């Protein structure tokens, strides 16, 4: 009898177990951008999550960044969006404002817990009306680090890395090679979309200025500080002639050995090291342009978001929390060589061992603050780029360029705020 009962119990347990497992089998879709290092890290993290949660299956697909915008928007337009998206900090706010993504639920992490766990600069760009819309995977670092080709620098007699802005310009002048009206080797290259914009904003802050009004409802670029800042950027091409703008990506210019120093985020190092191991490189903090601290404003980087109106949002958020936890973040950052967004990973010895270049961002991060609510980050960057280009090429005056920036951004803000 007992034997029979035991058998019965075993069978019913097995049955219940299998039915339960069957009923709860959940498939999530996650989309990311094509990037070998990100893909590797994500696959590992997904495998770890699936091992802990056997009833969850995550199908992960990647698409090239250039077309990610089209891909994701079309899928949202028919309600076929994936549950989880790995999204660039530039896009997250636009998507949040258009009601495409969910805010981070308070049960998962309250606003206070978010701010406790992550650097302000890393998550500032995800915040809208006091609520966060994404969990961060990295800290963006467009301002703050310079990648140097040591062979070139030594060949022109620069033995030590510059520690002040004047030394930087001096070294850059030595390393620049001109060819007619063109520059064939840049001494210090600052370009490629984002970097110029973030340098301009950092220069304004370092000059003691501010580009926002008090409640962040309008920008103010017609200040003496902004004028000094833009002048400094224009000087690189005009007065100092240590660079000329190119359409080639800064990383490509660097690996072609056509620049001695390039302003670039530390994420580029993993690419340079793996593809061009023969280059002798150094990475050092960008010196402040004034005597003040090297203050800068930073954009939020790659984050994970959960789409509106998908089933299994709780599971999706659970995965996102797992993927951004200290332990998984460490694995992600070791693989992608990105900069940690988690305060717990500041100066993490394990990370530093894999990527010693992280010392630079670690040194710089106390000076960073969030950019502010740009309304439409893509357009914000575009407007500044156009004006800076025009000023650098001498097509319009510095004052005119700043007036353009101020007027166009304020118009964009007014439009976005429905005013």
């Amino acid at each position, binding site marked *: 009898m007992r034997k029979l009962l035991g058998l019965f119990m075993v069978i019913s347990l097995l049955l219940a177990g299998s039915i339960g497992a069957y009923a709860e089998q959940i498939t999530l879709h996650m989309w990311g951008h094509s990037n070998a290092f990100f893909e590797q890290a994500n696959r590992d993290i997904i495998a770890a999550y699936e091992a802990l949660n056997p009833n969850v299956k995550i199908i992960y697909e990647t698409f090239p960044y250039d077309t990610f915008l089209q891909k994701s928007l079309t899928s*949202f337009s028919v309600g076929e969006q994936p549950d989880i998206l790995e999204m660039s900090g530039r896009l997250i706010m636009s998507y949040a404002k258009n009601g*495409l993504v969910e805010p981070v639920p308070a049960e998962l992490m309250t606003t206070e817990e978010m701010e406790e766990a992550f650097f302000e600069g890393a998550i500032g760009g995800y915040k809208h009306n006091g609520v966060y819309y994404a969990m961060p995977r990295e800290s963006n670092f467009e301002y703050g680090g310079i990648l140097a080709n040591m062979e070139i620098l030594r060949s022109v007699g620069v033995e030590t890395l510059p520690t002040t802005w004047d030394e930087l310009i001096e070294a850059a002048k030595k390393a620049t090679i001109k*060819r007619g009206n*063109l520059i064939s080797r840049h001494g210090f290259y600052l370009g490629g979309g984002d970097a110029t914009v973030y340098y301009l904003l950092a220069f304004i802050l370092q000059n003691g200025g501010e580009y926002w009004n008090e409640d962040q409802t309008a920008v103010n670029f017609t200040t003496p500080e902004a004028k000094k800042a833009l002048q400094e950027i224009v000087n690189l091409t005009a007065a100092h002639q240590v660079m000329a*703008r*190119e359409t080639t990506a800064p990383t490509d210019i660097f690996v072609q050995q056509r620049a001695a120093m390039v302003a670039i985020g530390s994420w580029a190092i993993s690419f340079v090291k793996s593809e061009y191991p023969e280059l002798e490189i150094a990475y050092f903090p960008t010196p402040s342009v004034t005597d003040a601290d090297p203050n800068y404003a930073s954009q939020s980087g790659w984050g994970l978001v959960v789409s509106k109106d998908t089933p299994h949002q709780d599971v999706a958020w659970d995965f996102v929390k797992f993927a951004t936890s200290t332990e998984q973040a460490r694995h992600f950052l070791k693989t992608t060589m990105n900069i940690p967004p988690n305060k717990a990973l500041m100066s993490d010895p394990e990370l530093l061992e894999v990527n010693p270049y992280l010392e630079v961002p670690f040194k710089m991060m106390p000076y960073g603050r969030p950019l502010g609510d740009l309304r439409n980050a893509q357009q914000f960057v575009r407007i500044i780029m156009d004006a800076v280009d*025009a000023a650098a090429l001498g097509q319009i005056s510095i004052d005119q360029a700043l007036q353009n920036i101020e007027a166009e951004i304020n118009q964009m803000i007014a439009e976005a705020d429905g005013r």
Partner: protein
Amino acid sequence: MYRMPTLKRRIKSWGFTPFVAISLVILLMPLFVFSFWPIVEGFILSFFRGSSVLRPVDEFVKLRNYKDMLSDRIFRTAIVNTFKFSLMVLPMNILLSLPIALGLNTITRFREALRSAYFLPAVTSVVAVSIVWIYLYNPHVGLINTVVEVLGLMPQAWLSDPKWALFSIAVMWVWRDLGYNVVVFLAGLQGIPTYFYEAARIDGANGFQLFRYITVPLLRPVMQFVVIMTAISSFKVFDPIQVMTSGGPMRATTNLVFYVYEHAFEYLKMNQAAAASVVLFGIILLITLLQLFHFRTQWEY
């Protein structure tokens, strides 16, 4: 009983024989679904504003999207660039492809191989060759400046100088698109029956006269096709601009399509994008109708 036959007769007198009717249905049905409807939707969107990119028809705003656009400096630049680009590409393309086709039509040996060579760029992926051309245009290592210097001219920063950027993309686009027109012209030339030429030669016509009085008039339908298609494709060029310059430097290569793309997918402003594409549509339609009309009146001679 009485009405049916007249209706049938009338339909027939309109030219809708069973063959015509069936063929029209086969051709128009997919077009209605997959092309007219999206176009009509875009047209409707352009008169609305939405609360979100997914709900783009919330508020009827009449012509506000168009008015905003007209006051946008970048939109005006985009219109100018769109026309400039066509005016660069169209003559370059025709003045190269027609002589090449005539030459290929004259020779007999290696004609197939040479034709394939001219067509080869057209089979490549635009994105991949755009990356190759960025390298060719590189002011320092690029082949183009090397050649320019050998010719004793000034090397330029082709893609990053606003004076040259649009022209540089136009040259690349002619290179990539030329093969289509060579092949079409050649097919047109081969379609001209040889007995026309033989008869004319017996009448004592010389080479130029053969070209002027036989080739040119008989090639006219093909010429019409080539001009219209090359114009349309030059108005719609996008991929090389996105890959090579992203509309810069200083908006020098921002054309209407790029403007549309930027608003739709980067700024998530679908309604403004729709308005801009209606303008682009209007421009292309007008120019196509003018060309069709122009070629038709020429046929009257």
